[in-house]
């Protein structure tokens, strides 16, 4: 078990790190095609990454340790999450520690680090981005934890592998109203956490409409490369988490090599499909006004709450 499990964890981290830019490239390509453009090709984010690593890092005068460490912490949290979440196999050495609440908290930690970096520069845009990001995060937390609650009721634990294993063995949980409501709520939350439309526009050039971008305006070269990689990894992991929770088919519950390999292939396919769907949907959406975002999040909160109550009163207790 351990050899295969350890290999699986390592492979998860490597695959997420290597695949995150490709996922972004795929999503940009889908968007480009739907806009009638040719698109830069799926490998473009990797080219950007390579170039940024070669460029000159800049630490402006008047910034402090927070500015320097935030990119590292962002990528580190994403990597730890990639190791914890059972994307391909539930039988890993870390599966005992793979607690859903810990995953949520680690995501928030990365965001907080970046917000502090934004404030650390002392520029108006940095502060603006940090303030908006923290507002969104504060409103997102309740939805996430209620969704966690709803998911952990049938499994009787917040341990991710246990939840997912339970859903694999009892697919009825997937189609139950609670499961579907939780799925929608988590999907909305994922959009907010990863700064996608309609909450934030990842490709905006206008500072006043920025949330995530505004915090990283000062980063250059390798630092910027890390920030972008971190954001892409977060998106990949969250999509992977959604896939594992609501389409768990194929995830290896045993430690057989063949099952794990198959699981990795399926994982790549699922995440690619989810990403393509998201990119296609984004073509139809416009960014919400900042003060309409709470409405969206209140809605997702309501869905999460309904998920919890539904799992109480529809299925009885």
């Amino acid at each position, binding site marked *: 078990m351990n050899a295969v499990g350890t290999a699986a964890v390592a492979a998860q981290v490597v695959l997420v790190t290597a695949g995150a830019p490709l996922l972004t490239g795929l999503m940009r390509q889908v968007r*480009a*095609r*739907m*806009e*009638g*453009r*040719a*698109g*830069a*090709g799926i490998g*473009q984010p990797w*080219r*950007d990454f*390579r*170039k940024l690593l*070669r*460029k*000159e*890092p*800049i630490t402006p005068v008047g910034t402090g340790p927070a500015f320097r460490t935030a990119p590292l912490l962002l990528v580190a949290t994403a990597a730890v999450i990639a190791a914890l979440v059972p994307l391909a196999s539930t039988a890993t050495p870390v599966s005992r520690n793979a607690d859903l609440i810990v995953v949520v908290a680690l995501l928030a930690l990365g965001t907080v680090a970046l917000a502090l970096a934004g404030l650390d520069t002392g520029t108006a845009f940095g502060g603006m981005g940090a303030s908006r990001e923290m507002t969104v995060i504060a409103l997102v937390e309740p939805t996430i934890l209620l969704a966690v609650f709803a998911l952990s009721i049938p499994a009787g634990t917040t341990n991710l592998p246990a939840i997912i294993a339970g859903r694999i063995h009892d697919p009825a949980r997937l189609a139950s109203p609670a499961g579907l409501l939780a799925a929608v709520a988590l999907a909305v939350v994922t959009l907010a956490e990863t700064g996608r439309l309609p909450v934030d526009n990842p490709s*905006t*050039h*206008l*500072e006043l409409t*920025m949330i995530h*971008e505004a915090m990283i*305006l*000062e*980063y*250059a*070269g390798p630092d*910027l490369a890390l920030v972008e990689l971190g954001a892409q990894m977060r998106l990949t992991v969250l999509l992977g988490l959604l896939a594992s929770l609501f389409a768990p088919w194929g995830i290896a519950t045993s430690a057989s090599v063949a099952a794990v390999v198959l699981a990795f292939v399926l994982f790549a396919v699922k995440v690619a499909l989810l990403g393509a769907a998201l990119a296609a949907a984004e*073509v*139809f959406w416009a960014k919400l006004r900042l003060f309409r975002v709470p409405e969206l999040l209140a809605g997702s909160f309501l869905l999460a709450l309904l998920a919890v109550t539904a799992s109480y009163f529809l299925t009885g207790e």
Partner: protein
Amino acid sequence: MSLLRKIRDTGRVAEDAPPRPTENPPPAAQELGGSVQVRHIDAGSCNGCEIEIGSAFGPVYDAERYGARLVASPRHADVALVTGPVTRNMAEPLRRTVAAMPQPRLVVAVGDCALNCGEFAGGYGVEGPVADVVPVDLQVPGCPPRPEAIVAALRIVTGR
């Protein structure tokens, strides 16, 4: 639904890529390896060039397919796309912007005004052409230059 139908009917708008320009790229562009982030600076232009740049990144010419992308901050940028004669008020901001870009960086002067002040030569508010303020690596003549020309210049930098 209607939008989806429109997307299906329109299909691909981008024209086929013309042959790659043969000029050899400036030395700084060697390291970029097919990825160029562009920061556009209007140093006092009449916005004719802006319109052309806009269409250069639009669906028809689609400069993005060659690895060029517009970004919001000079810290993220490799290329400063400067248009217009440099007015007295924009000279210092232009210097600062270029200085804020990390090495390796290039400056591309777009339009006759950027090369030799064009119509505005000798104007009381005009400091001079871009080359007088910051070192220029590439020049795109024309008043305004056609989008193909701008795309071609960017392709020289990206090497794609």
